[in-house]
């Protein structure tokens, strides 16, 4: 018998599980679509309702167009953050299904069940990000990035979204009910995107909040994207954004696998 020593077919099984998740997403697109609409709504709201006043407030010559340029990177991160909710809910729901119990009793790669969710969610979020950028371009967003800067921006987004998604998977595994799973990612989907430089520069915040906002992961990624897309100063945010992304991904990955390895109940 050589079965025990054969390499576990992680890649092949992960692709199978990804196909399963894409099939689910295609059949039941409602929740993922809703999630893409929230950032689009916020973009339009902040540009057209608050944009005039906020644009003046942030300086740089002010105005609605200037505020649009300032806002887009933050809205992109908000898109990444809201994607955490459907991921956590989908994972939590999936774990209660008999099919996952079946997977656990089959000689397949165990992480593949989670990898399928993660890759599927990352693809979905990247589609949502494309949608948000398209809307931003349509209402007058004019980035001055060269192809290399675009590539770096996309690369950073993929890295950060992967990290958030692994963390969401862990939160989904941790939650006992889908309702709980939809609340668990609240810090990722709501708190961190708001207490950051998404809507206003951190300089304008009181010192305690400002310190938190300046160094938390969302701000470092937003400032890096802002620099890559619109040419503002990146500074220490570049390496911090990458470090945060990798740290979150590693934490989410290790935590998810440990949670998944517990006996189901």
């Amino acid at each position, binding site marked *: *018998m050589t*079965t*025990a020593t054969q390499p*576990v*077919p992680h890649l*092949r*099984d992960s692709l*199978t599980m990804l*196909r*399963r998740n894409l*099939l*689910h997403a295609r*059949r*039941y697109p409602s929740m993922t679509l809703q999630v893409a609409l929230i950032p689009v709504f916020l973009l339009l709201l902040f540009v057209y309702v608050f944009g005039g006043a906020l644009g003046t407030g942030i300086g740089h010559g002010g105005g609605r167009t200037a505020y649009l340029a300032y806002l887009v990177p933050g809205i992109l991160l908000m898109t990444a953050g809201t994607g955490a909710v459907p991921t956590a809910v989908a994972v939590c729901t999936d774990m209660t*299904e*008999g*099919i996952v*119990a*079946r*997977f*656990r*009793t*089959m*000689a*397949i790669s165990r992480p593949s069940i989670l990898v399928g969710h993660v890759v599927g969610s990352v693809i979905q979020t990247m589609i949502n990000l494309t949608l948000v950028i398209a809307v931003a371009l349509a209402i007058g967003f004019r980035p001055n990035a060269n192809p290399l800067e675009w590539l770096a921006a996309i690369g950073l987004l993929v890295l950060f979204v992967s990290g958030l998604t692994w963390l969401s998977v862990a939160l989904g595994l941790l939650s006992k009910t889908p309702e709980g799973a939809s609340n668990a990612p609240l810090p990722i989907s709501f708190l961190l995107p708001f207490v950051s430089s998404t809507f206003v520069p951190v300089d304008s915040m009181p010192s305690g909040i400002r310190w938190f906002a300046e160094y938390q992961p969302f701000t470092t990624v937003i400032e890096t994207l802002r620099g890559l897309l619109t040419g503002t100063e990146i500074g220490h945010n570049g390496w911090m954004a990458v470090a945060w992304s990798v740290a979150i991904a590693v934490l989410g990955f290790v935590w998810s696998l440990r949670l998944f390895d517990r*006996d*189901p*109940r």
Partner: protein
Amino acid sequence: MNPTTPAPAIEATGLRKAYGDKLVLDGIDLHVPRGTVFALLGPNGAGKTTTVQILSTLIRADGGEARVAGHDVAAAAQTVRAAIGVTGQFSAVDNLITGEENMALMADLHHLPRPEGARVTAELLARFDLVEAAKKPASTYSGGMRRRLDIAMTLVGSPEVIFLDEPTTGLDPRSRHTMWQIIRDLVAGGVTVFLTTQYLEEADQLADRIAVLSGGRIVAEGTPDELKRLVPGGHVRLRFLDPAELARAAQVLDVGTRDDEALTLQVPGDGSVHTLRALFDILDGASITVDSLTVHTPDLDDVFFAVTGRPDHEKVQAR
């Protein structure tokens, strides 16, 4: 696999499992030879599902050892998984995708080449009468269809040992008989079936050996006939038209339990022609008139109540 002395399909000693303070399995021993059907019979909460979950590597035991298809479920879980198929109490199908997609998913996870996967899928869908429903989402299936799809998915990997956790719970009579036939066909094909059930008739119909599980312990084990012999429940019940006849019968027979209100006399006996004839000879000799006679042979209900010691009709549904 060692070809000279094939290991039993399932062998377990002293399996223990507790959830918090609640002891679910309190030292279970099992021995299931290859190619046989073994039924674990017990009421809800007896620990049947937990036993299946441990043997199928879904959860870990707190104590004891178990080997399935010759491999330790704890130390060589992945090897055990390659040899088994599991159909759970709650259908292990993906409800969001179609029956055919469920089958394709299994074929892919068993790394069958595409043409072979398609062939196996088509074959199994036809065998389990699911061709018409193949393109519909599994969520639209009836209970019986979903259970058939469940078993079809289990068979994609050609497992040696199949675990069926309450395979007919919630099915209508027709679907239940279909399921029984499916199980008989599986065994005819050489696989070992380990099934759990709360239905005595089901265990009687299908199993070579039965273990009765109650409160986390196996309280009786044997073939259906051996178990029935455990209870001396066989008797002949004679009914009379008037108390005088009853009194005379009780006198000449000198055995049995007399019920003056019902005008019956219960005489121990297995109900064979030989014992009945002996009985009639005595009664005829004394010119006693018997109104009616019923023969009662023990069934698994008697066994169940005898060994678990609680005739709880809510939990045990004999059909």
